[in-house]
């Protein structure tokens, strides 16, 4: 909420609350996981999208399914960042914090920017709840809050109850509506359209109209409260962003991934087969795809991750576009089977929605620490392409691209996304189906001169031959195979030749890549390098630094193996190279080994994405080492 950093007078309310224009706002809704914060956030998002802002969101669930009500581990949050400009992250820190109970206040208040708007449901600050949150005394009585923030105590629960007096709802049902009050208040404050939300509620509760109307009523109550309470000094306007024209929808990364996969199969004209075992935060891809049975999409919930990839290998052998989805620990279990897919040279997409580790780690938190596992984590020389998505919406294109490479080069491909991308959302310009790059599936059918491992001279791909093709009966397997016939071969020279050609095939993918784009000048003092879900933070950090005249550029790698051919040159054109990753320096290791460039690392391993400011500060330290030391 850049434009409002200077405190407006709180003592000056007016009937006609002025609407102040701001460029960018970050709001965080937080409360008990039973308080419906995810729904509140999603509805606000929808409405903000319709208002034409660019936006990005970040939900933050508790690890427990239902932690005991009112406790710290039970806090659930949803952050939305929206703007009249391009937006790339869900925001470093909220400008507005809506806290529905003491536990939520306790865990989230440290993030609120100084001078930000703080709205609390004061009715929830009962002794019991204060105790559960570990507050010795009621923080609402603390005067410093009002000094540090624009602080509003609202009796949300009570107002909700009053709004629904006589509605015939049980008090439990009434309590469940209070999030709608907060939503309505925010709708008022940011001038959001409410129609879509209201229509959606009526659809959702079509069979319980009483509930639907109660919710609608409470939204209005919240809105009207803002309008009438003479409490809020300002309402704000965030003008629509100048987004490229077209039809938009909001997607999470997992939805976009699912759509990308389905789109690839539809374009290729073949069945999509997903073999998967549920795991947080990847399960939603399975959920999404399991709805698409009328799209030639088969989802198979396997008994474990090995059967997940195993079944996908079987389906790929049968001619399907096959994919398996998982997260870190499940990825570890699939590595033996990946080796088989590499030997068989069948197309297959393996998606790892990375999460905090090692081991079970922080399953609901994000991290980027499976890169080395993806690139190197298999027995023997088992190369395969690895690509990464850089934003929720980008997951669509990345998934699509994964299949394109898999089919063109007859190889398993790993796509890395992460929990932050998977659960986060942003507006997505719905692509024109006609214009999607074609994916050409050509099964070999001709028995003439057929050799299972004869290769396409350009791509080095072997033919895709599927059972059911007369005259091409043959056997494949995990033992080393003859260079041409694919029969088992123990010949030493043949082995070396095969190991090398498999490596060459994967390395050769780089030749087909478009020149790598650098954001900023092609040379300079500092190149910030990243990959995957940190795109937004790095991009905006570079933008800020560039705006201040720094010679800083940003390189974001989609292709992690093989690396694009021009990366070495790009790196060498900068005085400093900083690789920023949510791990201990994994991409940096690869770049250093490949290019012998003294790339420095900036690492964060907290289960959370980078903040833009963190990147900016680190860059400043590099650019002005003395200043930083001072």
């Amino acid at each position: 909420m850049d434009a409002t950093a200077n405190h407006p007078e709180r003592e000056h309310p007016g009937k006609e609350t002025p609407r102040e224009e701001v460029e960018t706002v970050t709001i965080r809704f937080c409360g008990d996981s039973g308080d419906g914060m995810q729904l509140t956030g999603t509805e606000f998002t929808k409405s903000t999208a319709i208002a034409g802002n660019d936006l990005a969101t970040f939900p933050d669930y508790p690890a427990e399914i239902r932690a005991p009500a009112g406790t710290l581990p039970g806090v659930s949050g949803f952050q939305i960042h929206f703007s009249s400009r391009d937006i790339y992250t869900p925001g470093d820190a909220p400008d507005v914090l809506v806290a529905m109970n003491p536990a939520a206040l306790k865990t989230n208040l440290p993030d609120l920017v100084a001078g930000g708007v703080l709205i609390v449901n004061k009715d929830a600050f009962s002794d019991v709840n204060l105790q559960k949150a570990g507050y010795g005394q009621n923080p609402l009585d603390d005067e410093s809050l009002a000094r540090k923030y624009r602080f509003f105590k609202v009796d949300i629960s009570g107002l909700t109850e009053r709004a629904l007096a006589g509605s015939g709802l049980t008090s439990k049902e009434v309590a469940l509506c209070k999030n709608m009050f907060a939503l309505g208040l925010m709708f008022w404050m940011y001038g959001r359209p409410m129609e879509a939300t209201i229509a959606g509620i009526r659809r959702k509760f079509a069979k319980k109209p009483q509930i639907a109307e109660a919710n609608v009523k409470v939204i209005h109550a919240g809105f009207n409260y803002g309008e009438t309470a003479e409490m809020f000094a300002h309402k704000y306007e965030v003008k629509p962003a100048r987004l490229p024209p077209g039809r938009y929808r909001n997607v999470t990364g997992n939805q976009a991934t699912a759509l990308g996969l389905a789109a690839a199969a539809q374009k290729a004209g073949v069945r999509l087969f997903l073999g998967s075992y549920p795991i947080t935060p990847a399960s939603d891809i399975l959920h999404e795809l399991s709805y698409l049975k009328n799209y030639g999409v088969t989802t198979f919930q396997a008994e474990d991750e090995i059967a997940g990839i195993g079944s996908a290998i079987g389906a790929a052998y049968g001619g399907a576009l096959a994919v398996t989805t998982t997260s870190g620990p499940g990825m570890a279990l699939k590595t033996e089977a990946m080796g088989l897919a590499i030997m068989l040279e069948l197309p297959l997409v393996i998606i790892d929605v990375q999460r905090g580790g090692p081991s079970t780690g922080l399953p609901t938190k994000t991290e980027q620490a499976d890169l080395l596992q993806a690139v190197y984590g298999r027995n023997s020389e088992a190369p395969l392409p690895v690509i990464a998505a850089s934003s929720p919406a980008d997951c669509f294109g990345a998934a699509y691209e994964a299949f394109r490479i898999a089919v063109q080069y007859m190889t398993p491909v790993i796509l890395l996304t992460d929990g932050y991308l998977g659960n986060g959302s942003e507006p997505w310009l719905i692509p024109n189906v006609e214009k999607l790059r074609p994916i050409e599936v050509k099964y070999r059918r001709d028995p003439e001169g057929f050799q299972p491992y004869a290769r396409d001279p350009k791509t080095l791909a072997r033919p895709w031959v599927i059972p059911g093709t007369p005259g091409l009966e043959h056997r494949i397997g995990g033992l080393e195979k003859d260079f041409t016939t694919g029969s088992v071969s123990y010949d030493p020279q043949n082995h070396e030749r095969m190991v090398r050609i498999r490596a060459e095939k994967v390395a050769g993918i780089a030749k087909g890549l478009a020149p790598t784009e650098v954001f900023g000048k092609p040379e300079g003092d500092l190149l910030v390098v990243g990959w995957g879900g940190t795109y937004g933070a790095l991009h905006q950090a570079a933008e800020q630094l560039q705006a201040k005249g720094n010679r800083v550029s940003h390189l974001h790698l989609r292709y992690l193996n093989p690396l694009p051919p021009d990366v070495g040159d790009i790196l060498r054109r900068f005085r400093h190279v900083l690789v920023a990753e949510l791990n201990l320096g994994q991409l940096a290791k690869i770049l250093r080994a490949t290019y012998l460039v003294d790339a420095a690392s900036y690492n964060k391993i907290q289960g959370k994405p980078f903040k833009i400011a963190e990147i900016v500060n680190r860059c400043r330290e590099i650019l002005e080492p003395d200043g930083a030391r001072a």
Partner: protein
Amino acid sequence: MSANPLPVTPPLTKKDFQSDQDVRWCPGCGDYVILAQVQRVLPELGIPRENIVVISGIGCSSRFPYYMNTYGMHSIHGRAPAIATGLKVARPELSVWVATGDGDGLSIGGNHTIHVLRRNVDMKILLFNNRIYGLTKGQYSPTSQVGMKSKSSPYGSLDAPFDPLRLALGAGGTFVARAVDAEPAHLTEVLRRAAHHKGTAFIEIYQNCVVFNDGAFDYMTEKAAREETRLVLTHGKPLVFGKAKDKGIRLNPKLEPEVFQIGREGDLSQCLVHDETSETLAWILAHLQPPKFPTPVGVFRAVSAPTYDAGVHEQEEEVRGKKGAGDLAKLLGSGETWTVS
């Protein structure tokens, strides 16, 4: 990936199913017999060769696909049932066979085996049970008898073995059978039955490993002893065995099976009559073990039940029927959308 139009071909012969690879099992290995019988049965089925796929894991037995002139995959240890599931679900028109061993299918691959049985995916599982790890040169396996001395159990194995058929029944198997390499004609008969079963057909085949566990099944395969030590199951026929057909199996009051002398100890009417559809009987039969009982061979259980692969496709049809065939543009544009101009 649509079903290929089946070309009109002359009937196939055993030879059509022999690949050009040299068979590399030890001379005298029981695997040869099994291979020959499968190659004998397949031509009878009238399935075009290209529509048959044999998938195996790792083990001596798992080299099977190399010798079959069909489509085939020699995959990784224990995973054949999972791979076969993916293939069958993606391509239900194919005839899918799995060749596995007691180690491959019951040790590392035990989970996939029981899950395939549970789901009743339409495939034929040939479990070559030689009660040893052959390929890795002679460690005891999950079907080795207690006390077996092997490379990894020099003082005798302590693991109680699985009975593969009991395990298969416990997992919900709809077709569960046993055959033995030493009786090829009977094996052929069982394979034929399996081939015609819709759903997972699980066949345990006792197979002699001449190198590491030679003679494990001699007690029931040697001509002299056979009539007393093995019992051929036939649906609707009483459980009678012995050279003179003078022994029967009946239940005692504790519902446990016992052998009795027909005539002397009871009459034929007390004898259990084989019923492939009885869940209880298959279970009782799976408990008949030497030395007290003859070893039953044949089809223990065969019932019809929905298959997973067919279910998948029926459900797809149903959804398509209700929602119409998916339209990609509609899908991408679904949900709340808005237009920026």
